[in-house]
């Protein structure tokens, strides 16, 4: 028995060491940078400078919120319709949803420029029927489109997974008791699929709020999101590591608080747990 527990301690020891060294320590070093100036002296100035980036924070939160809502509106019916298909079609749809994730997301985002630009595919087609050109690129809506596009699979897959495991006898019972399709959806499927919705929202919101590529390519550098600010400052060189660390810490805090609030909210709704 003793030998066995020693063995199991040896099994988890490397991982505990690893996660301490590469998950915990980096966060502390980031905190150290955030609380010092470029010369290494203790200072709060990085945090008092943060008000300069208030707009970037607010815009990032707003864009991430909007794109998460749109993604949910697109993904939920899709997942629902998928569960109504034959098993073969369901699997095919799963593959079709996952496959874009294996194509580099930078290229998929970049391709949208070819579609949307002033001389792009949509405007060329519009021009052929005597319309346009429409100004589609480098606008706030384009950035949101990019977020919705890039992260849609992350919303579809968890919702579909949870929905497809709902016991058919539950919906049948509701139908037998006289509920119509819409009522079954609202009273049975919607509450039972909440855990999938919650993890979908998490998986879309976190990358959206922190992205720095989509806004650069589709927003034409007009909109600086908080991810852009962090990337920009780190590229300026070591003198800017301190303030960039402070921003990253605040971003992390915002994400953790949002996730926490959402988990509380979903618990009230009847029980999905992400954390």
């Amino acid at each position: 028995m003793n030998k066995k527990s020693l063995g199991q301690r040896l099994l988890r020891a490397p991982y505990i060491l690893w996660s301490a060294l590469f998950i915990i320590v980096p966060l502390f070093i980031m905190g150290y940078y955030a609380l010092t100036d470029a010369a290494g002296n203790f200072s709060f100035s990085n945090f008092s400078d943060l008000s300069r980036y208030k707009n970037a924070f607010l815009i990032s939160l707003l864009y991430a919120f909007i794109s998460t809502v749109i993604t949910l509106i697109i993904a939920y019916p899709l997942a629902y319709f998928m569960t109504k298909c034959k098993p073969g079609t369901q699997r095919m749809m799963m593959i079709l949803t996952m496959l874009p994730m294996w194509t580099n997301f930078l290229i998929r985002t970049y391709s949208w420029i070819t579609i949307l630009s002033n001389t792009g595919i949509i405007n060329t087609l519009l021009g052929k029927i005597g319309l346009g050109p429409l100004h589609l690129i480098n606008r706030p809506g384009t950035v949101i489109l990019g977020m919705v596009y890039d992260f849609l699979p992350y919303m579809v897959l968890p919702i579909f997974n949870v929905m497809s495991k709902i016991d058919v006898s539950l919906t049948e019972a509701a139908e037998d008791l006289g509920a119509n399709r819409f009522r079954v959806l609202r009273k049975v499927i919607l509450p039972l699929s909440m855990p999938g919705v919650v993890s979908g929202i998490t998986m879309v919101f976190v990358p959206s709020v922190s992205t720095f590529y989509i806004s650069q390519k589709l927003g034409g550098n007009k909109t600086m999101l908080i991810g852009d600010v962090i990337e920009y400052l780190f590229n300026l060189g070591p003198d800017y590591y301190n303030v960039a660390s402070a921003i990253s810490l605040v971003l992390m805090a915002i994400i953790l608080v949002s996730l926490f609030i959402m988990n509380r909210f979903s618990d009230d709704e009847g029980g999905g747990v992400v954390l």
Partner: protein
Amino acid sequence: MKILSKLYMALVVLFLYAPIAVMVFFSFNSGSSVWVFEGFSLAWYGELVFNSEMLDALQHTLLIAVISATASTVLGTAAAVGITSLRSKLAKSAIMSVTNIPMMNADIVTGVSLMLLFIFFGKMLGLSESLGFFTVLIAHITFNLPYVILSVLPKLRQTDPALAQAAMDLGCTPVSAFFKVVLPSISSGIFTGFIMAFTLSLDDFVISYFTCGHYQTLPIVIYNMTKRTVTPDTYALSTLIFIVVFALMLLYNVTLSRSEKKRGMSR
């Protein structure tokens, strides 16, 4: 209703594949632009063989993906077994909370914090270049580990501990009981974890961007290209990758439905 739902599904698929269709289409462009289509040509596919920057990057990406997925699968499976046997609830939830951090956190924060760690220790050790192959590898193993652990843990929970106990009562050592009894029953979880780790590693851009230094992986090279001009050879390589993955998935789907049919018939 049925037609409407089919139409809706088709529209979403169209949305998901529009940029990919553009990518495939322009990979056959005879001109050097990804904006103006001049004519059909396979020239860019031929050019790929000579594009050493991109081929090197592809090789780096595959190397990092294979090593990091293997290492995180071994380390993560061992950790999952070790965590399951923990009796203290507090220790268990502490470890799980830490495990969740890289999954919950934004990639950019994970990447930046790891970069600062490497630079900090690089400075302490007096290295002139603190970022490179090993730092990307460490970063990839770190963000892969939670996915492996979380796909192995549920399988371990479904495995009856009495099985391993029985094997030991019948004379197995704890080690051979693990390999003969526990491992086979969690193998599907380990496999899922490995595949997830592998694909996450292949696809990662943000964390690599901050930790790679001059060791460029494919997403980094593509990123640098989109900062200058993208030529159709990038699209050609991505099209090839897309076709390979698509073929593998179709094959998997076909074998799966075949085995299902067989099982159905024997019943």
